[in-house]
């Protein structure tokens, strides 16, 4: 049962490399819901929780966790309206499909909002590889804007090189810089745009390691720091500093399983507090960091 689930998830990620991991997780959970033979709503919730745990063992990123929580919330909200299980399941399946349809459009909405902030002749700095940022830059290039991009190499997996390749294919002049060169390059840059793996309740973000550094430097240089993220990445965490982010998000799933002493490992993500972020572009609109908690409250309360 577990292998089936994991295999489905992996297939989803493979067939569409452009799909966000949270969307793949939600799709997997929806399929799991369809195949589930449970008799009660409580049983359904239990099995979905178990399924989400299985998925986080495969891919320990914040996005998968937030996707799973969102799906659970979706189940709770729908089950409140219909008492009968079979009717409830039908409604859930319909709404689930609709939800997936809507969120597949979210990157386009974000790109539509964000590209107006990129002016002609702008120099943009971005971190590592983010598909949402790529979509925004694609849209800006399609609008015939001329801009140059600096991408950080982003060790330890050098994801920045993939981003640079993708941008070169769009004929955008791009330079790969060392992670250590962020402070050096910021004086030339007009704005900083990064993606996010998770957006936390305070309005801060969790993203690839090195984002916090970039945010602090842009604050020091007075450059705007923009975050682009879809709304399904909003997660119910409230970290006050780097230590507060749970270990299960900081390291890759394999590392968590095999290594006993985590203090020797390098974390893959860091937390950027809301005071360093200028604006967040989401499919719910252009939000200031203080608006994020409002959205989360509307959903979870």
């Amino acid at each position, binding site marked *: 049962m577990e292998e089936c689930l994991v295999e489905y998830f992996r297939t989803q990620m493979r067939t569409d490399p452009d799909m966000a991991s949270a969307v793949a997780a939600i799709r997997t959970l929806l399929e799991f819901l369809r195949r589930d033979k449970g008799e009660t709503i409580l049983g359904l919730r239990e099995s979905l929780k178990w399924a989400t745990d299985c998925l986080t063992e495969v891919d320990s990123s914040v996005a998968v966790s937030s996707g799973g929580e969102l799906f659970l919330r979706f189940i709770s909200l729908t089950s409140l309206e219909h008492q009968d299980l079979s009717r409830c399941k039908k409604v859930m399946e319909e709404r689930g499909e609709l939800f997936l349809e809507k969120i597949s459009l979210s990157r386009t909405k974000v790109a539509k909002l964000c590209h107006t902030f990129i002016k002609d002749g702008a120099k943009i700095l971005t971190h590592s590889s983010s598909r949402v940022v790529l979509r925004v830059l694609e849209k800006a290039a399609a609008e015939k804007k001329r801009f140059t991009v600096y991408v950080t190499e982003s060790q330890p997996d050098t994801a920045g090189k993939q981003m640079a390749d993708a941008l070169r294919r769009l004929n955008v002049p791009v330079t790969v810089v060392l992670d250590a060169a962020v402070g050096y390059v910021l004086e030339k840059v007009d704005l900083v745009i990064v993606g996010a793996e998770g957006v936390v309740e305070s309005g801060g973000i969790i993203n690839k390691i090195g984002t916090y550094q970039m945010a602090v430097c842009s604050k020091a240089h007075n450059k705007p720091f923009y975050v682009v993220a879809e709304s399904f990445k909003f997660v119910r965490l409230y970290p006050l500093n780097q230590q507060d982010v749970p270990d299960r998000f900081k390291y890759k799933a394999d590392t968590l399983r095999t290594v006993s002493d985590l203090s020797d490992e390098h974390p893959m993500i860091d937390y950027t507090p809301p005071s360093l972020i200028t604006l967040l572009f989401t499919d*719910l*609109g252009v939000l*200031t960091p203080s*608006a994020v908690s409002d959205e*989360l409250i509307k959903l979870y309360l």
Partner: protein
Amino acid sequence: MPGADKEADLTERIEAFLADLKRGGCGTGPIRGSGETARETTALLRKVTAQARWSSAGDLMEIIRKEGRRMTAAQPSETTVGNMVLRVLKIIREEYARSRGSSEETDQQESLHKLLTSGGLSDENFRQHYVHLKANVIEAINELLTELEGTTDNIAMQALEHIHSNEVIMTVGRSRTVEAFLKDAARKRKFHVIVAECAPFCQGHEMATNLSKASIETTVIADAAIFAVMSRVNKVIIGTQTVLANGGLRAVNGTHTVALAARHHSTPLIVCAPMFKLSPQVVITTVVRNRIILSKVNVHCPVFDYVPPELITLFISNIGGNAPSYIYRLMSELYHPEDHDL
């Protein structure tokens, strides 16, 4: 035919308004205050609603959008016109939803909650015809007009809570709202006002004259002296042309300087702005006017300044005092997100 006459009369009024708007921005400064512009726009939109031919809410919204686009194109820097059009569009949506019997919640903002629970891709096309929609919309617009008429008084009423005796207040240029605010406080308190003259049009002089007529001790200073004098100032109270969606301001040239000086001395910066100045824009383009004074010298004279939200302490509007981080919330109550791009 009476019908044709009314229509001709309506188009005439709109043309006159557009011509007025076009003239208002050029020349030696704004001829009319933004409050009057807002009232006139709303009155005109009410006339359009009453006299234009429409059968469903969708048609009316299209007509209003069309007129709105023409009006904003006439004078892009006058954002109150666009704001009022958005308010009226929101009123139409609300009245339509009320006529349909659905609760107002369903038609609100995009939110995660709505994404998860909505039953279908809501393609609201506003095509249904309701008999009382016209009367309801006109009544709601009348309420909006009453609100607009009372804004300056509502703001002035809050003055006594913010201004204390023997305080030194600084202001920039001329703002009718701030003038009313200070005059109201002067009825019961004695305080001193320093006005930055705001070159090159020096509207600060007119402000100082009006304030001294109300027996307020006023001093006029040159713009260059703002930082030097700031250490003696208790509060800075300014008006603005527009309040942007992120809580920032588009205000008269020189306001950013005042804001930075106030931040440096940890002086509170209070902005008196009525709600009709709230605009859903975030990106602003500076309006620049050139004057060639010598043949080889080009003088750049930007009319407006951008003040980022971090420098502002408090917004006082006709609905009370708010922090800049709350502006996005007020905006979601006034305008509908789909209308943001007219």
